[in-house]
């Protein structure tokens, strides 16, 4: 009579030599797979350090002085630039965009003369009203309004450049002219700016290490490894497995 025990098996306890060799191949493949995928991520995690962007370092150095109004013209320009770098982030949430736009508007207003500030505010108001009209316009009217907005925006950059140091045609100017608002808190000590430091830290501190700072084929190395190399490895593992298994089956004369 056949015993049930004769047919007991598991991946760790195969029934015969073929099964044992098969098990070794499978477990080796699994080990390579796990180490390659998760081992690398754990390594990334283990060696990473929170690294601030240059703009954050500038911001943290100057923010206390800026709040008290005791800041030199050059430092003010650097400070404004650090805010613009944060405002240019594509992943900001709407409420965070608002805080940054408000603080940029408020601080840049303080950098100007009173007369210039009044001119700036009226120009921004005009831009804002034109932007509101845009969705309802079509064809030539739409294009003409867009052109007018562009002219007004560029004029803002030109008239403020001596104070802000932001030149027309630069990336900073693109962000600056789009960010400015006509309605914003009158002082940098306003309650709505309490979260500014947290926003700056959140968006300008990044987990970096030698694996993220090294470049390979133009990529940050860790990005290449995960996005490109791992996929190549998966295909390679599959090919190697198939070749090994079929070679073994052929060698042992097994017909599936």
């Amino acid at each position, binding site marked *: 009579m056949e015993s049930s025990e004769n047919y007991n098996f598991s991946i760790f306890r195969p029934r015969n030599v073929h099964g044992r060799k098969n098990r070794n191949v499978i477990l080796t493949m699994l080990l390579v797979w796990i180490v390659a995928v998760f081992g690398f991520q754990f390594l990334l995690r283990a060696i990473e350090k929170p690294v601030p962007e240059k703009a954050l370092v500038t911001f943290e150095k100057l923010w206390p002085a800026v709040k008290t109004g005791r800041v030199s013209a050059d430092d003010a320009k650097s400070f404004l630039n650090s805010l613009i770098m944060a405002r*240019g982030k594509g992943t900001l949430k709407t409420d965070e965009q608002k805080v940054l736009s408000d603080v940029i508007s408020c601080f840049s207003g303080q950098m100007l003369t009173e007369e210039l500030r009044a001119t700036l505010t009226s120009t921004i108001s005009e831009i804002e009203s034109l932007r509101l009209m845009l969705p309802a316009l079509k064809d030539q009217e739409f294009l003409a309004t867009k052109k007018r907005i562009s002219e007004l925006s560029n004029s803002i950059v030109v008239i403020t450049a001596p104070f802000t140091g932001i030149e027309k045609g630069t990336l900073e100017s693109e962000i600056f002219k789009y960010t400015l608002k006509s309605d914003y808190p009158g002082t940098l000590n306003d309650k709505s700016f309490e979260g500014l430091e947290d926003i700056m830290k959140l968006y300008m501190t990044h987990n970096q290490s030698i694996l993220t700072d090294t470049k390979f084929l133009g990529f940050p190395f860790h990005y290449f490894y995960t996005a490109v190399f791992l996929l190549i490895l998966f295909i390679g593992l599959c090919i190697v497995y198939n070749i090994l298994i079929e070679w073994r089956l052929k060698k042992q004369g097994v017909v599936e």
Partner: protein
Amino acid sequence: MITDMKKIYLIIFLSLANLLNGFGQSLTQLEGSFKTGPAIILIAILITFVLVGIFFRAKDPADYYAAGRKISTVGSGMAIASNWMSAASVLGMAGMMYGFGYNGLAYVVGWTGGYVLLLILMAAQIRKYGKYTAPDFIGDRYYSRNLRIVSAIFTILISFAYCVGQFGGIGLMFKWILGLNYTWAVIIGSSVVLLYTLISGMIGATKNMQIQYVIIVVSFLIPTFVMAFKFDYFWLIPQVGYGAAVTDIVQGIAAPNIAGGEALLNAYGHDLAIVPSPEFAMPWDPSTGTSFFQWVAICFSLMVGTAGLPHVIQRFYVVPKVTDARWSVVWGLFFICLVYWTAPAYSTFGRLLSSNPEVGSLAKDAIVVYTAQLGGVNGLIVGLLAAGAISAAFSTVSGLLVAGASAFSHDLYVKVINPESTPKTQLKIARIGTVIMGLAVTIVALLKLGLIAQLVSVAFSMAACTIFPLFLLGIWWSGSNRAGAKAGLFAGIMVTTIALTYFIVGLSGGRLPGQEFISYWLNVWYFAWFGAPISIIVNIVVSKFTTPTPLEIKKFLAEQVHN
């Protein structure tokens, strides 16, 4: 027959080519208008699918479920890839990387790495076992009618959850092309895919999947060559060339990128410049709201879920030989990787092109099409890209609906309710099941519960907690018995239920005890990191203390499945 189809296909495209040139249009308006060229491309492709479906339609249940086991290795690989590459791959994945940076890569790795598991642990063994569907295997291996029924129900639920994201993707693309609102776009798109699946069944679907794969790959790759060339990156292999663009995003491009003395502009006329944005590429960046744990949990859940998805497992029943099952995985994975290597390029160029605050952050699920538009790619190529995305969703949905319908008719109706039914009745029931499921999915898709990739990942976690442990232990441990399987499945279902309940309550604004804790650690997008191991452990423990597996099952596994 195949030659005839090739002729029809060629004639349709050649005759349309001239016509379409007349409809090339400026596509700087991202949404809201009817786009003639893309619409014609889409209609031509859909007509082709339906014609192929009619030519290769299912004639009996064997054809409907398993394409008569007439598919070659490379053909099966293409079908696996096409079946696999859904709206989540073509649209959703790039959207995740665009919105969540490095954490989006967990989807790329998770959705490819799972194939290694599938190959070394399951593909050949499933083919050797010789069943048509996942519930067939489970019912037979665990000698249990109840387990067959429960696994059939879960097969339907998994297919259902998977379909929701696909129908959402179809809706988004129909919305973009036809300029309709989302609701009508989903209704029209769903109707078309349902009609197609009913006409063709799986054999038509398998033939179509091969055509769909070619459309998906060609339409997905061309815009990246164009953009890489245009923006002065290494365009011969844009899958590598975009790496320099990633570095540019991390370090920032201070001044307009100059190529040949002219500033590079996007379709809106904006300079290609960006502030330093390391958050795009640095691992689990705090600003993306993601963590290291989430990266690992998502990746693990997707990998394990891949090896437990009924419609993926079902592909191994259609190959003629065991060795074909193995090599079809390799081909399938290679074909999949062609697209997965390319998807990050879209999110990278998308980030660069939307860096100007006036463009602003773009809708994540449509980032692929928007990127091509903003990159100034020819309108017809963008239209082909959108049609390719719809093809991807179509090919997957047809496979899912067939898997769901198979579970309904073959595993529930024929095996449980009416074993005496004729093949004609079985086919009728399969088609009724397809319609019911299609309608229900349409309704849920209209609710817009999440991003495409996230919605699809729910299906993966469900599969990982329920089907995967039963297959893994069923194949690799003779000691896993009926009681263990039931207990393990129950544990998996409990974890699934908890995750889904907290998600639904949270979505409706309610709160349950430990809402934040569960929403983070057992999030609906990745709860399998916990559910799958728990299900396996419970299965093992209960099996150890209950009546052993019958001799004939052990003997069959030892002699037939493991030679």
